[in-house]
């Protein structure tokens, strides 16, 4: 289903190219010397996680599409339990976002380089939990709101806040300097866990937020995944019965 969105894929690719070739390159000349030598690679790793996040969110839009075209009824008629259905959606949403982001990750690896393949494999595998968790969160919000317009707006605002209040674009030390409130949110933000883990995996270990790595980030992502998968399963299950999604 995701491959139908070929224009979305093209747009995301353009966005990635612009972020890296313009913003990443130019901003790396703008930052303080202590950060300047690694900022380009630091930023590329952040962009990869931003893309993974936005691709995983997309499953929520499909929920509305399905409700509009009567696909829900078909899905309910399948010989699978409600829990399996929701878990399948959440995991499917995460896997397909990896299909989209896979080539981007490959490009990022070529640019950044790879210090320790084992670290990268561990980080890469754990990022699946991040993608599943974000898909679960998107499904939860989609079925709770029941309005595609409201969902679209809320996800836009949430995206703006969750990305900016994380370490995707800047290290935690600078967020801390800027505002204690921002730093507190950023420290417990799943996007921060994912960004730190990906950076640890590719060997950008300066300016990591959590210790000990990778354990702290993995625990954070496991909690995020279970919370949103469980909440998503419960709400989705309730909404599915008796035409509650309409």
């Amino acid at each position, binding site marked *: 289903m995701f491959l139908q969105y070929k224009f979305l894929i093209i747009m995301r690719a*353009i966005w990635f190219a612009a972020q890296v070739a313009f913003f990443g*390159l130019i*901003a790396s000349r703008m930052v*303080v*010397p202590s950060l300047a030598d690694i900022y380009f690679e630091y930023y590329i790793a952040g962009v990869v996680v931003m893309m993974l996040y936005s691709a995983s969110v997309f499953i929520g839009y499909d929920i509305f599409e399905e409700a509009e075209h009567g696909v829900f009824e078909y899905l309910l008629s399948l010989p699978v339990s409600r829990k399996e259905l929701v878990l399948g959606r959440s995991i499917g949403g995460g896997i397909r976002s990896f299909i989209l982001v896979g080539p981007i990750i490959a490009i990022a690896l070529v640019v950044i380089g790879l210090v320790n393949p084992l670290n990268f494999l561990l980080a890469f595998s754990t990022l699946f939990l991040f993608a599943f968790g974000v898909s679960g969160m998107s499904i939860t919000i989609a079925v709770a709101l029941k309005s595609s317009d409201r969902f679209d707006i809320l996800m836009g605002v949430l995206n703006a806040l969750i990305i*900016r209040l994380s370490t995707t674009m800047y290290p935690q030390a600078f967020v801390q300097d800027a505002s204690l409130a*921002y730093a507190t949110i950023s420290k417990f933000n799943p996007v921060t866990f994912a960004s730190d883990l990906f950076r640890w995996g590719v060997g950008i270990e300066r300016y990591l937020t959590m210790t000990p790595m990778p354990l702290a980030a993995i625990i954070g992502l496991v909690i995020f995944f279970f919370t949103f998968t469980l909440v998503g399963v419960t709400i989705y299950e309730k909404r599915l019965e008796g035409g509650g999604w309409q």
Partner: protein
Amino acid sequence: MKAILHIIEYDFRNFFRYKWWLAGLISMNLADLLIMAVVYNRMVSPEIAELSLTSYFNFFAPGVTVIGLFASAFMIGREVNMEVRRQIHHYMLSLPITRLELAVGRLLAGGLRGMMYTSPLLLTTFIFLGFPSFPQFLGILGALFLLATGISGLSIATAVSTTSFEKFVTARGLVYYVLFFCSSIFYPLSLIQTLGQEGIMPQPIVMLAELNPLSNGADLIRSFLLGNPTFTLNMIRNIVVFSIVFATSATVAYMKIIEIR
């Protein structure tokens, strides 16, 4: 003239239908300013000449005003594209309004909507950076209106030239990202020029950044409010040329293409 006002009114009514979408967009712009720019304040090097005299927040505030103007003025294209796809333009063509009035009305409405949307962002910029003198204020408003009309023209020309919504959205994405990132919205123009001199950034890209109307719009506000970069007539010239080129091409394209379809 009356017919043009009717078209503007029609487009403004449509604009207010997207009030929640607009609220979302403005919150994204404010998140850029109040979160990203505040953190970058701590991150930017004091060695960058343009940023040594002011904070990154102050530098970026005019940039975010121009981003808001661009995004909202570009919205008219989405509506025009939708009208063409759903054949609503047949109704528009049946109205007792000349083709030229219709095209000019759409163009001006797009520009005015952009101005209306960006006014709270511009006010926020004034509150943080200080208010300009009255002639400077008029200069900023005039330049932003020309810029918004040019953007509206670019958006309408893109909308009528693309056959499907997906193609329009993809073209819009390309225009957005190239014009946003290849400009002085996020970083001083001198950084792009330095990368060009070092051979890292291709010269056509450097030239695009220099001529980019978004660079000129943001730098014009900065020159009046921050005193840096120095105001030059080239800023006005680039915005005027952009506005004339895209307003004319959008008017011609809109009149011709909606009649063919």
